[in-house]
């Protein structure tokens, strides 16, 4: 099975190299955990590799998602919209579940064999569009089975109630049916805020079984932190920045990175070097960015 890069810095290493192609991934998290950011990074990575991307949004307006994506370092998101490689489908829960029941199988038959990246953010309203638990399960099972035939699917799920208690039926059903499950645990009430993620399952892969602290930083988005090392001093930054840029320029052609993606990575470097907030080590994030694109020396 081919692995594709998740687009989330530092995550691929925890998933045996990335996400298996033509699988379904479920990302669970409470409000503010970074589900939509995760999803946009996932699509961005595919687009940079020349894949098609579909963002099915059931809550947020596409403009809002784009605005946030730009904030997270995806400067040229709009250009993919213009080229038609990135498409937003803005649907209601009922509307989308009607589509699943009535039209999905025909649609999949027509597009069978495509490798698009498909995001459903969030899946929760689709589940709520049917009352019976049995029907919910049927619907999700059908949705996941069908969509993975036309691409690699990522669904986000809202975590309601106590954070970490994953027993609600609207979580249980997709967790059982999805191929990969990632839990973004975000304790917003704690000081300082605590963000950790865990790969709950990852079919056909050797995956990490522990909790990993993660962060969200302007200019780069979601990244998984490495075990702490002393934070490099400010003086060091200029030197590392120069190194990183040199690596980018040198290795970009080899790793099939197109000019657009390269420019966007330089932009990420800009933001990270300027980053002063909190306990984020910009250099650590930079190292993860390089790793994501296979640019390590």
């Amino acid at each position: 099975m081919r692995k594709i890069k998740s687009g989330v810095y530092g995550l691929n290493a925890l998933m045996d190299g990335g996400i298996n192609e033509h699988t379904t991934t479920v990302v669970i998290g409470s409000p503010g955990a970074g589900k939509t950011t995760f999803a946009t990074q996932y699509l961005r990575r595919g687009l940079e590799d020349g894949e098609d991307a579909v963002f099915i949004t059931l809550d947020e307006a596409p403009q809002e998602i784009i605005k946030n994506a730009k904030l997270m370092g995806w400067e040229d998101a709009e250009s993919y919209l213009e080229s038609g490689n990135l498409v937003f489908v803005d649907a209601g829960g009922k509307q989308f579940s009607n589509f699943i029941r009535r039209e999905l199988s025909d649609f999949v038959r027509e597009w069978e064999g495509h490798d698009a990246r498909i995001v459903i953010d969030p899946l929760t309203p689709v589940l709520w569009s049917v009352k019976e638990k049995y029907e919910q399960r049927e619907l999700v099972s059908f949705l996941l089975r069908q969509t993975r035939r036309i691409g690699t699917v990522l669904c986000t799920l809202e975590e309601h109630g106590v954070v970490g208690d994953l027993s609600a039926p609207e979580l249980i059903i997709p967790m059982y049916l999805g191929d990969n499950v990632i839990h973004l645990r975000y304790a917003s009430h704690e000081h300082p805020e605590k963000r950790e993620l865990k790969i709950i399952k990852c079919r056909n892969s050797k995956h990490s079984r522990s909790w990993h602290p993660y962060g969200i930083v302007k200019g780069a988005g979601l990244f998984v932190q490495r075990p702490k090392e002393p934070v490099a001093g400010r003086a060091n930054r200029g030197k590392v920045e120069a190194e990183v840029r040199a690596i980018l320029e040198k290795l970009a052609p080899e790793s099939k990175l197109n000019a657009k993606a390269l420019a966007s990575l330089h932009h990420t470097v800009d933001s990270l070097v300027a980053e002063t907030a909190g306990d984020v080590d910009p250099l650590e994030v930079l190292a993860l960015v390089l790793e994501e694109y296979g640019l390590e020396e």
Partner: protein
Amino acid sequence: MRKLGQALKQVVSEPVETERGAAARSVLMNANRRRVFEYVAWHPCCAAAEIAHALDVSGPTAAWHLRKLAEAGYVVEPVLGRARRYHVAGMALEPNELGGLAALADETARSALAAIVQRPGVTTRDLADRTDRAGLRRAVRTLAAAGWISTVVDGRFRRYYPGPTLAAIERSAPRRLRDFRRRLLRRLERDWLAPEARPAPGDVLEIDIRFGGVKATLRVPTESLLRSRL
């Protein structure tokens, strides 16, 4: 080149349009037409004039609604000689059954058959007392030809009994009506009329349909093709 995302967007956002559009275009939007449809469901192989009379609408009005229902595939218009007859789609009636049912469009034939079903062994004279004398001979001949009744000569009387067609049609009626209902519900679903069916007393199925703010109920038979005719 068409892209997957754009195609998906089109399919997902289309139904909203189709939903309203299809419901608005549905022939069952019209209250009189629904009455005509129900009448046809309860009276297989009825004639337009009979419907007009029963529903107290003009002949051309009944014919217009029947044509619309037939065009939309809710009602079938089998060719039976020169007469136009109607029954609901999905019942798979055989030609000989059609002929038999069509014979019942005649008022005299209907009341004669009703009398024979009520009192098997009834004589010609009894029938003449109960029905329109003028058409009786012809009606009895038609009913006998279609197998609705059998005739037994008893001395100087002729006695009439329910015939094999009657039993056969009633025996197969629940199955046929089930097929019809299944097909009807699927069709209503496809027309975005959000059908909801529930059984009602008297072997009736009530189907609620909805479009926009309008709600209506269709009542269709579940057991017998003849009850409302005899």
